[in-house]
């Protein structure tokens, strides 16, 4: 049942105040320990979905369970299980990098040893080194992204929800972050649900992929399965085939 599923989304509908129907009966599940990638064109509803899972938005219809907990009725319980990296976010400008990590750590842990461990892990994952002693307002876009991502992983959630985790990062940093996400998921059994526009990233990283168009999952499977099904060489070709912007089939 639900309990061994990390995420269970059933018939999710989201209508925004001015009538935009962002989600239209979206359903999918994520198994525990899995890395699941949501891909889809701009405006498909990825961020909306992740925000509902992170308890920031309320679904208009449908249900979402995180490790068996209803995101609407047990939102606090759900937030204890997950950490969320928003699509567009930063840390308080006036805080130093370390102070931000410590702030987030203290909201979850009381034991100084746990907090120290989060700090250590976040500084290692971020690779920011001495820059962590500087104020966030002096950071570049990529540095801010690394700080947030590292913090959200270092607190060791059972489910990490990452909205375009590597957006704004250079090639080297993206590669590093990808390997960290993978290692984290494998060694600690952290379930990861991410969205991305980078097909290469999704292909290398994700165990399963859901392609979302106009608020519905229209295709789902492992990268290999999808490539075989569409007879495509790359996931990019699968994507283009599914979204119908190009003729289906191999090059």
């Amino acid at each position, binding site marked *: 049942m639900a309990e061994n599923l990390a995420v269970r989304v059933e018939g999710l509908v989201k209508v925004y*105040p001015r009538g935009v129907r962002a989600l239209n009966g979206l359903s999918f599940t994520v198994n525990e320990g899995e890395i699941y990638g949501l891909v889809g064109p701009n405006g498909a509803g990825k961020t909306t979905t992740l*925000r509902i899972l*992170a*308890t*920031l*938005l*309320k679904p208009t219809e449908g249900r979402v369970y995180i490790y068996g907990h209803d995101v609407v009725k047990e*939102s*606090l319980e759900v*937030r*204890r299980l*997950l*950490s*969320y990296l*928003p699509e*567009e*976010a*930063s*840390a*308080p*400008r*006036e*805080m130093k990098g370390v102070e931000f990590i410590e*702030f*987030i750590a*203290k*909201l*979850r842990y*009381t034991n100084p040893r746990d907090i120290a461990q989060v700090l250590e892990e976040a500084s290692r994952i971020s690779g920011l080194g001495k820059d962590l002693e500087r104020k966030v307002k002096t950071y570049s876009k990529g540095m801010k992204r690394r700080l*947030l991502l590292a913090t959200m992983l270092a607190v060791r959630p059972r489910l990490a929800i990452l909205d375009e985790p590597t957006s704004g990062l250079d090639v080297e940093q993206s590669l590093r972050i990808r390997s960290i996400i993978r290692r984290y998921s494998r060694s600690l059994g952290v379930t990861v649900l991410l969205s991305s526009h980078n097909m290469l990233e999704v292909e290398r990283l994700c165990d399963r992929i859901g392609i979302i168009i106009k608020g519905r999952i229209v295709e789902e499977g492992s990268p290999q399965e999808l490539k075989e099904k569409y007879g495509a060489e790359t996931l990019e070709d699968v994507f283009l085939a599914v979204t119908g912007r190009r003729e289906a089939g191999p090059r």
Partner: protein
Amino acid sequence: MVFKVLLWKELRSLLLNKGALISLVLIPIVILMAGQASVQQATKVATSKLCVAVTGPEAQAVERFLEMRGVCLTTPAKADLVIYASPGLLENLSRGLPVKLSVYYRLESLSIASLKAPLSIAKLLAKIAGNVSLVTPKVVVNATVLLPTGKAISGSVASMMMTMLNVLSFPLIFAAIFAFAPAISSMMMEYSDKTIEILLSQPVKRTTIALAKSVAATVTGLVQGGVMIAAMFAMMSEMPKGLGGLSLQALGSPSAMVLLAASVIAEMVFAASLALAISVFMPGPEAMGGAMAIIVVIGIGVATFATSYGVPLAPLKALMLSPIPLIGPMLVSALNLAGAVAYGWLVVLVRLVEAGILIKLFARLLESERSLTAAIRFMRGLS
């Protein structure tokens, strides 16, 4: 404890940063310097150099009456105050009876130090009439401010200012304004720093976030407002007595001071929570405008109304105690309870309950997606 962590984070961003700390030092210096200047100016006004002009039907008779008592007379354009000599004024003046005078200020002379000038004018008139017992209660001063353009704003500006100084609502209006600003900037920073989604996805109850923000804004307001009001007191207490010379003892007994402190804190928590709730609907600088309008228009409006229409203060005291007359204080005032102190404490209690309700409301707004939608709108507006 999570609350402490959140409170500390809020306090750091609101109070313990360079900008806020520098202004904590600078503001009192500016006030004290302005005070110095206005004390000098006011001292000039206070002495017998005050030159009076008289207009109206009985102008000549009143002029003669004043001249005989050594008052400096001049033309209206040069006068420090203009007296409108209505029929019967002279008779009352010479018999030491209560008189109603219209006193016109020129705007330049309406400095901070002359806030209490109506009192000194009343005293001057008492001296003129040769009857010292005429002071305050018997002379009703209606002040009119003459703008440099020559236009006059009539009303009872002076008595309103007196009321604000004499009744607790003066410090309370300050209290509310001082709590509004940090509360609104606390939410604005969440939006402009793009931290709101991260904050709201942490495993923390919304009520805890709301309470931490409200308390942090209150503490910040207390420190900033406290420093400023202390500077103003320091400035005013340098003035000669009878000229707005103000001492803490003049405010009342120690128990009244405790009540005042409690009122200020209650008012601040309330105002901060109101501002936080407003900022979910009006993210950005307009929240400040909206909040200020509520405070200033309603608060000062009620104070002016009550005093200028001579409404008996007792039933309105609760309203006067609170710059934002919401249901609670109105109810209290409707009950018309006797005893000012019990009254005051009841208002404090009601305010705290209202603050609690507003904090809950703010927490509900954070829980609903309204705060996020507001944040998204705000962030889109920025980029």
